[in-house]
């Protein structure tokens, strides 16, 4: 049976507060799908709605085509991994993993076999008799995954499971999670506020902001072809230049910004006079005057050498600095602090989007 997860115009309200507004999307069977968004944007709320701890105020959640309304969390084909893992501290590792099986009345021998199999899958062999308190952070993580997989869910829901780990372990666990997903082949729905996690692991990503799903697409699409100002500024570093459209033709616009008239692509069909934000990625900006018209100049505030690359910070038109990333191999002369530098970018690097809220990081 397929286990597509569908949200159909789902609204979730807490009293007058709207936590999720009009979410509609379809997650395919076997997909590694991420919800990416800043803290408080409603990611956990969506996950709890899919797992059955919350009912949508409006709209429908379907799993495998079946309407889930009225079906409690204990009867849905999903398993949730909590942000704080929520392992049972008084049980051993094996007892934790076996809990869901015990609830289902699975015979002991069968429980043991399954637990052994999962201990192997999650690289926890010989840890079965340990208490939870005796495990490291990464091991607890794996126990939580094994406990959830034991009940053979069709969909595994993960709520920022790596956020408590240190950086090294987090990066290691990313690969491990992805490998486990490919081995068990079930749908993973993953929540994170860390774009690196979302980009490296996911087949597709939904970017959320303030209860709204702003864009759904694979990592490359979301990164290269953001459709809203929020997505452009939240996924990856970006330089925004706000202004008004003064020319629009052939899929290109010119935006009049405080630092001059800048050109860019126009995928959203902006028209003359529209408020727009023109985005240029830091690695697409180059030092020195360009051949075409997309050149601006600004005062250099700081130059930060970071090994394989350097960051140049320039005084921007707004509070936010303009950032340029200069790769080590590029033969550009790094400017001095206080100098007024010219910068330019290639015609394809500018992207104009309708004005909207930016991610404030």
């Amino acid at each position, binding site marked *: 049976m397929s286990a597509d997860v569908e949200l159909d115009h789902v609204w979730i309200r807490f009293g007058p507060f709207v936590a999720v507004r009009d979410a509609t999307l379809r997650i395919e069977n076997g997909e590694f799908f991420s919800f990416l968004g800043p803290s408080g944007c409603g990611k956990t709320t969506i996950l709890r709605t899919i*797992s*059955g*701890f919350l009912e949508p105020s409006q709209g429908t959640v379907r799993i495998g085509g079946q309407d889930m309304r009225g079906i*409690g*969390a*204990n*009867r849905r084909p*999903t*398993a*949730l991994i*909590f*942000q*704080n893992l*929520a*392992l*049972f*501290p*008084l049980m051993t590792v094996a007892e934790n993993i076996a*809990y*869901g099986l015990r*609830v*289902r009345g699975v015979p002991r021998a069968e429980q043991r076999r399954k637990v052994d199999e999962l201990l192997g899958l999650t690289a926890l062999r010989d840890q079965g008799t340990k208490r939870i308190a005796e495990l490291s952070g990464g091991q607890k993580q794996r126990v939580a995954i094994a*406990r*959830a997989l*034991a*009940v053979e869910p069709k969909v595994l829901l993960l709520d920022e499971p790596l956020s408590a780990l240190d950086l090294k372990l987090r990066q290691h666990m990313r690969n491990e999670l992805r490998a486990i997903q490919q081995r068990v082949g079930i749908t993973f729905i993953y929540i994170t506020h860390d774009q690196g996690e979302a980009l490296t692991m996911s087949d597709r990503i939904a970017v959320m902001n303030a209860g709204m799903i702003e864009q759904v697409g694979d990592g490359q699409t979301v990164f290269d072809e953001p459709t809203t100002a929020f997505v452009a500024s939240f996924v990856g570093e970006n330089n925004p230049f706000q202004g008004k459209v003064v020319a629009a033709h052939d899929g290109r616009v010119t935006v009049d910004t405080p630092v001059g008239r800048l050109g860019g692509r126009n995928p959203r069909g902006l028209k003359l006079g529209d408020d727009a934000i023109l985005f240029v990625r830091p690695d697409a900006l180059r030092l020195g005057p360009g051949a075409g018209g997309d050149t601006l100049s600004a005062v250099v505030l700081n130059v930060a050498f970071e090994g394989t690359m350097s960051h140049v910070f320039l005084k921007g038109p707004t509070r936010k600095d303009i950032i340029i990333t200069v790769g080590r191999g590029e033969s550009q002369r790094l400017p001095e602090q206080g100098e007024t530098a010219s910068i330019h970018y290639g015609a394809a690097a500018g992207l104009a989007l309708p004005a909207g809220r930016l991610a404030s990081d």
Partner: protein
Amino acid sequence: MGQRRASPCPRAGSPVIESLVKGLLFAVPFVIVAVFWILAARERRAAADPSAKSFLERNGGVMAAFLIVAVGFWAIVMIVLPQLYMVDFSFHPKLPAKDYGGPEDHYTLASYRYFIYGSTEETDSYNIVHLRAFVLTIGASIGVTFFSFWFCYPLAYFMAQSAGPARLRMLMLLLILPFWVNEILRAFAMRIMLGTSGLINNLLVGLGVLAEPIDFLGLDIGMYTGLAYAYLLLMMFPLYNAIESLDRNQIEAARDLGAPWWHIHLNVVMPFAKPGIASGCTMVFMLSAGALAAPQILGGPNSLWFTPIVYDRFYQAFNWPQGSAYALILLLTCIVFVMAVMRVFKVNLGEITR
């Protein structure tokens, strides 16, 4: 007739030695405080760490002195010594006050013998009345504890895990406020409610639910209700505290893994709250078994709670040795029982103080 089955216990020594012993007993607290003091002065938090400060240095001289004297005084003078006196008393015969320490005074098991056989001398027949009251008291206290637990657990769970802050505050107030009214007044109020012509019976008869009023008090229902109510908070708060510290996500995790609600309570919530459950049950059991007001005011005419019997030994029979012996028997039985139960449920004494 009158022959002694048990051999007489050895007599206490001469009055001089007796007063010497009593004097020594009074010196004990000071000795203990001194010992505490020396221990405190020598104690290091970690022996391996030479820079660690001693108890005295850590707390400052005045504070340390206060702690040592307060704890020493409290533990020794308020608790241990009086109890030792009671133990000692229970092994003496009943005598006029002036004769204690005199030639008539000697160690004897008479009071204990009386509890079992109903006579200080004979062992032919059992003291049915007292033994029955004793067993009933223990049994009924167990019952009251069970009732109290099953009544409080759902409420404590609701308060700790489900109630919003406003409702929680209101429930807390509703629980605490009635206990501003003193115990005796509450017991009498309950008597008025439960009497044959009390509010509840009038209501039930008036509504036609009952043809005749039920004698709640005579059936001891009043007493059990009163007892359970009197120690409600002592069950409520340990349970509430224990359940409150359980991470809500654990309950949801169990639910997400498919557990029905009763399974979650039995296997996740209760094991976690075990120290609180043990603490609450122990207190309610101990206090019920030793309760005086509720049984006296709400007990039926033919109910015999054990504590009023103990009370009567002291004040009606003026038999302090017997009263002491009875009180000790009750205390020891309760302690042994509680220890045994905690053993069965694998709770250690340290845990329930958390």
